[in-house]
């Protein structure tokens, strides 16, 4: 299989890292080379956070660059728009419709952009927008947005569904497993 690059964008605390680790586990179990990349330190404090997942026969750089992602998986609308330059022109975008206001908007210095969905759809006709927050709450916790979105992603990719759930079982702590599997299923059944 050719190399796949998946960029996961969100806000610090939304669990982009866990999502990329599940992806990585699944790709490794499928016998592929894997590189994941993440952000630590200052940017974690509620900032814009991105993790990269790349897999294929041989992966060198762990970084996804502008025009490099096959798929942009966004957990927040403003972040979906922010990372568009990193998505290939022929790439696919999957976004949670959740909005988390950044500090300049909170203080009133700037406005949260309007019509993001329309702008994105103009560039990517098959872009998919999901109310992942509602589905995560249905699964039992607002924090499970990441696994809902993984379910949405799984539907678009070639791996067996069981490969995804196996990877979730390996990566997620037992205490949160049931919640995350449920969230994944809800995303998958969209």
């Amino acid at each position, binding site marked *: 299989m050719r190399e796949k690059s998946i960029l996961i964008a969100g806000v610090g605390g939304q669990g982009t890292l866990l999502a990329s680790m599940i992806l990585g586990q699944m790709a490794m179990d499928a016998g592929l080379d894997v590189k994941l990349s993440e952000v630590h330190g200052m940017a974690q404090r509620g900032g814009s956070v991105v993790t990269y997942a790349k897999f294929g026969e041989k992966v060198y750089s762990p970084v996804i660059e502008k025009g490099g992602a096959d798929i942009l998986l966004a957990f927040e609308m403003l972040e979906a728009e922010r990372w*568009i330059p990193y998505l290939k022109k022929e790439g696919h975008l999957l976004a949670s419709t959740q909005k988390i206001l950044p500090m300049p908007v909170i203080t009133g210095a700037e406005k949260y952009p309007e019509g993001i969905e329309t702008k994105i759809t103009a560039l990517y006709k098959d872009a998919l927008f999901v109310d992942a927050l509602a589905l995560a709450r249905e699964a039992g916790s607002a924090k499970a947005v990441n696994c809902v979105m993984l379910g949405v992603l799984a539907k678009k990719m070639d791996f067996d569904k069981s490969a995804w759930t196996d990877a979730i079982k390996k990566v997620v702590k037992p205490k949160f497993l049931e919640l995350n599997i449920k969230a994944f299923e809800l995303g998958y059944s969209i």
Partner: protein
Amino acid sequence: MKQILLGNEAFARGAYEAGVRVATAYPGTPSTEITENIAKYKEVYAEWSPNEKVALEVAIGASIGGARALCCMKHVGLNVAADPLFTVAYTGVNGGLAVIVADDPGMHSSQNEQDSRCYARAAHVPMLEPSSSMEAKEFMLHAFELSEKFDTPVLVRSSTRVSHSRGLVDIEDREEVSLKEYRKDVKKYVMMPGMARGRHVAVEKRENDLEAFAETFELNSMEMGDTRIGVITSGIAYTYVKEALPGASVLKLGMVHPLPKKLIADFAGRVDKLYIIEELEPFFEEQILAMGIPCEGKALFTRQGEYSVNMIREKISGGKAAFNTTEDLPQRPPVLCAGCPHRGVFYILNKMKLAVMGDIGCYTLGALPPLSSMDAVVCMGASIGMTMGMEKARGRETAVKTVAVIGDSTFIHSGITGLIDMAYNSGTATVLILDNSTTGMTGHQNHPGTGKDICGSPAPRLDLELLCRAVGVKHVTVADPFDLKGLEKILKEETQREALSVVIVRRACLLLDSKDIKPPVTIKECKNCGLCLKLGCPALIKGDTEVLVDETLCTGCGLCIKVCPHGAIHARKADGKS
């Protein structure tokens, strides 16, 4: 067995497999997880040291004592540990000694982007540089072998992208390396002038031997392809080169100091055009130019920030990446968390219009709007010295309007000596120690003030109040950052006082214990005056006619209740009723 490991986990695994017995560090992004992970191996003694200098000294002692020892730090940490480094370069080792230093090109979480390779050259010690998790593990095994073979400390350079990316790693068993015999050897280990002169001779000989060794060292490898383009590179830049120029010939340097001159000349002779692709300083380039070999590097590539596949492709083969652009979007800068105990401090400092000499930690975020209450930040511990300097430059009038703000972990790291200076040389300004009972920014590591060791086991607790008094501070007060009125009153008194005073502002980081989180506040009949928004709390949102509460973020800390002049914000009881 293969596992996906974070680069830093792989460094820890490599050191573990190499039989390391002692591992020391002070936390610092992007190096922290190396030590967090090595502490999980019961065969290894691991510690958080108060700072990198102490960490290296402990590791040196362990090495002299015959154990394989590891010391880890971020790039600026090596500045702190530079003093022992330059002289352990003279003494050499007994048990193998490796020092991992993690650079941060692009400054993801740092105050500068210095290139640690320059230290290897300046201190005359070899340096290895892996490019992936797999290599991070393998290079550690080499590092300890080289250290013992050549009687030298070995630097291992990482970078943010190597430390914080994950990749497949072959997991192998630990090789138990027994303690070497300890023999008193004054000429080797007591570095006073007479002995050090002798060791300097040994250092030069060693560097020549290492240079000869580098010529055939397996970590320096030629990957010949199309000979029209040749690239000399190392570390993470190697991975970018392989993607940007898949057909090109590459000389990958796994050992970045000393350089294999013959190998480089050989490679240069085989290619038409030689490029040097290295992030930050022209470290290889200048040495290769000095060898009389024409090459191109910094004329094309910047000294600033991280490189990328796109950048290399664009500069060398001319292709531009295709992508869609977006309009200017609101930035999402990092913020102090909702419920952060630092918030109240900066709210008051801003209100009192004080000049604030700041320091390194989460609380550096107090510099950003709307709190906007920090005037200068330089390095770990500098807040106190800078406050003293401001006072001595501008006099008492400035001292009453200037405070130092430093975290508990940073104070222990390198603020104590600054405080001793203020006490000794009659400084009268005020020092605030923001004691949140952890090393926050790097992800909650224990330190001597937390009463717990690296494994979370009970440890003697450094008493900040007693320490401040012991160095000569007569006025030491403890304040609660959630008690805004009380804090403001104390700060007014202490800044006016014609003597040095320390205010320990104490409340644990909210992320340490979720039990401290209370139900979200409610807002009724908001007058939309906006005063609460000056707290810069991410849970308070400016609406068109009223301020709204983000209930998923609010921790019920109640600061906004105290700030609201209209009594419109209310605590909610645990049963959810307001």
